[in-house]
C-alpha cells in the first residue's frame, strides 16, 4: 500500500501494529469578524499513508511546514482528521470511544519535545509519573503505585529518592527522562517521539537517545521518531519517511534513504546537513535550494516540490507523482516523476 513491504535487514519482523491510510488534516482559514467566511485551508497533512511494525522505529523527517507535528498530534488524537484512518490492531483509532479509547491510550503514548513545558510545574515528579496509574486504576492497584513509580524512575536513570521533587529542580535532560517514564508507565506498544532531543544539549542528547533504544529493546516498543536532525534519525530508525508540505515524498530503510535517495528533496536535504568532518569540505555534492517553502495554504499544483526543484518539467505541474516504486531507480517508494539516485 505505497510503502516498502520488504522486511528490512537486521531488524525483527513484526506484524503491522499501526496502519495509517490517506490521513488528511486541513485547518480552515476564515476571514471576517462577525460572520466568518471560509476562504481556504492550511493543508497541514494531505494524504499520508504508512505502516508501523511491532518493535520497529520509523523515523519521520522534514522541515518546518511539512506537517510532521500535525501528524504526531493526529496519531495521539489531539486533533481529528479531515479524512483518512489510522488502524491500530485493526481498528480505526478515530472511531474509538469510551472504554475502547481508554484502551487505545494505554497502548499509544507520546514523548514531547520541550522538557520545560511538558511537565506540570506544580506537581511532584511522583505525581507526574504516577498520573497514568490514577487515570487507569486497573493497571496498578493503589498500594503498589508508589513502588511502580520508583521502579520507572530507576528504569529511566533517575534516582527514585527524588520522587517528591518538582520539575524545576531538574535539568532539561532529566526532565525529558521524567517525560519518558510517564510515557512508558502503562507499558504501551507504540510511542510517538515528537522531537524528543531537539531541545537538549548535544552531550545530553546522546544519553537520552541511548535510553530510548534500551527501553525499546527491553519493552518491545515501536517508535515513530519525528525529528529534524537527520543524523539522529538515521541512528535510531529502521525505516525513514521524508515529508514535504503535508505529504511523504520518499520512504525506505535508513540505508535506502541515506545512501540511495531518489527524490530530489531528500537529496537536497541530505546535501544540506553539515558533516562533522573538515576533511570532507569540497568533496560533497552541494545542492542548494532557492527561496522558501511555499505556504501550506496554497501548495503548488501537481508535485509540490516543483517550484524549488531543478528537475521540474511540464508534467510536474500537471500530474502529482504518487508515492510508488519507480522504474530505473532503487526499489523503494518515491514521489517523483524523475526519481533517480544522485
Amino acid at each position, binding site marked *: 500500500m505505497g510503502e516498502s513491504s520488504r522486511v528490512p535487514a537486521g531488524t525483527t519482523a513484526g506484524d503491522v501494529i499501526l496502519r495509517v491510510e490517506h490521513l488528511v488534516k486541513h485547518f480552515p482559514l476564515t476571514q471576517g469578524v462577525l460572520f466568518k467566511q471560509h476562504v481556504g485551508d492550511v493543508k497541514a497533512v494531505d494524504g499520508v499513508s504508512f505502516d508501523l511494525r511491532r518493535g520497529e522505529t520509523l523515523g519521520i523527517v522534514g522541515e518546518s511546514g511539512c506537517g510532521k507535528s500535525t501528524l504526531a498530534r493526529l496519531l495521539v488524537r489531539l486533533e481529528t482528521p479531515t479524512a483518512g484512518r489510522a488502524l491500530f490492531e485493526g481498528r480505526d483509532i478515530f472511531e474509538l470511544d469510551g472504554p475502547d479509547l481508554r484502551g487505545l*491510550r494505554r497502548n499509544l503514548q507520546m514523548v514531547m519535545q520541550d522538557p520545560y513545558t511538558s511537565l506540570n510545574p506544580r506537581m511532584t515528579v511522583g505525581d507526574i509519573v504516577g498520573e497514568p496509574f490514577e487515570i487507569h486504576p486497573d493497571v496498578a492497584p493503589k498500594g503498589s503505585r508508589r513502588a511502580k513509580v520508583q521502579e520507572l524512575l530507576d528504569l529511566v536513570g533517575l534516582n527514585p529518592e527524588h520522587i517528591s521533587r518538582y520539575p*524545576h*529542580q531538574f535539568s532539561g535532560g532529566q526532565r525529558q527522562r521524567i517525560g519518558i517514564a510517564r510515557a512508558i508507565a502503562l507499558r504501551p506498544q507504540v510511542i510517538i517521539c515528537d522531537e524528543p532531543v531537539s531541545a537538549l544539549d548535544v552531550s545530553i542528547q546522546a544519553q537520552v537517545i541511548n535510553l530510548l533504544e534500551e527501553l525499546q529493546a527491553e519493552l518491545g516498543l515501536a517508535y515513530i521518531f519525528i525529528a529534524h536532525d537527520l543524523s539522529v534519525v538515521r541512528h535510531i530508525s529502521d525505516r525513514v519517511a521524508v515529508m514535504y508540505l503535508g505529504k511523504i515524498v520518499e520512504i525506505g530503510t535508513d540505508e535506502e534513504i541515506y545512501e540511495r535517495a531518489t527524490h530530489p528533496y531528500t537529496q537536497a536535504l541530505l546535501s544540506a546537513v553539515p558533516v562533522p568532518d573538515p576533511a570532507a569540505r569540497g568533496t560533497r555534492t552541494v545542492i542548494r535550494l532557492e527561496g522558501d517553502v511555499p505556504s501550506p495554504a496554497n501548495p503548488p499544483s501537481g508535485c509540490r516540490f516543483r517550484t524549488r526543484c531543478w528537475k521540474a518539467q511540464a508534467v510536474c505541474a500537471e500530474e502529482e507523482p504518487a508515492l510508488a516504486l519507480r522504474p530505473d531507480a532503487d526499489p523503494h517508494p518515491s514521489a517523483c516523476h524523475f526519481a533517480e539516485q544522485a
Partner: protein
Amino acid sequence: MSETRGPAADDVAAIEAPRSLSRDAWFDLRRNPVFWIAATLVALMVLIAAFPWLFSAIDARTAPCSLIDSLRAPDRDHWFGFDKQGCDVYSRVIYGARSSVLVGVFSTLLTSVVALVVGILGGFYGRWIDAILARVTDIFLGIPPLLGAVVVAKALSGHDLGIWPVVLALGLLGWPSAARVFRSSVITARHQDYVNAARILGAGHARIMFRHILPNALAPMVVVLTILLGTFIAFEATLSFLGVGPRHTISWGVDIAEAQRWIREASFPLMFPAGFLTATVLAFIMLGDAVREAFDPRLR
C-alpha cells in the same frame, strides 16, 4: 549498569529538598520589605475587625455619646477626640473596621466564586460557551460599578439585612474583571504541553480542569483579588458615605460623611477614619503587588 542508568554525576537536585514553586515564591516574598509592611498592616486590621474589644476599652456600639463632648480635641484618655455627636472617635474607628473588612472579605469571596466558575467554563470549553459567557461578562462590565452598587444597595436597604446587601452589590459587579483575568490564564494553561500530555494519557475534563489548569491559572487571579479586596473596602466606605451602606452599623464611611460637614470646626474626626481607610486599602494593594512579583513565572 549501563552508562545511562544510575544517578547522574553532579546531580544538583540531590543537594536540595523538594522545592515547589509556591515555596520559591514564598522565599522571594520573605525578603521583600513591602510585603512585610503590607502584611503587618493587613494582619493588624483583621485583628481589629475580629477583636475590637482588645483595642478599645470603650464599646462604640453601646457607649453613650454626650453633646457636651462635641468636637472635643484629642487627649490622653481619648486619643482621637470626639465627633460632633460627642462620641469617642477612637472607639468608633476601631469598631468601624469590622464593617469595612467584613464587607471586603465577603464581597471578594463572592466575586471569586463567580469569576472562577465563569472563567474556567469559558476558558476551558471555548466556542459558544465562551462566547455567551464573554458577552455576559461584557454586559456586567458595562454597568458603572458605583452607580450599580448604589442602586442595588438602596433597593435592598429597606430591610435590615446588615452588610449583606452591600456584599451582594459589590460581588455582583466586581466579578467581570477577575473573570477575564482568570479566563485568559485558563486559556494559556490549556495550551501547555503538560495539559496535552494529560489528554494523551486519557485524562477526563474534570481531572484536567482541577489538577492541571486550576493550580497553574490561579496565581494571576490571586493578585487581582487581593487588590480587589482593597477596592471593595473603599467601595463600602463610599456607599456608607452616600447613605446606602449597612444600616445601624458603625462604619468609616458614615463617620467620614458626618465629619466632613464640620470640617471647618475640627478636622480630626475626619482625618482618623479617613487615615485608617486609606491605610487599609493601601495595605491590600501593596500586598497584591508583592504577591504578584513573587509569583511571576518569568522571574523563575
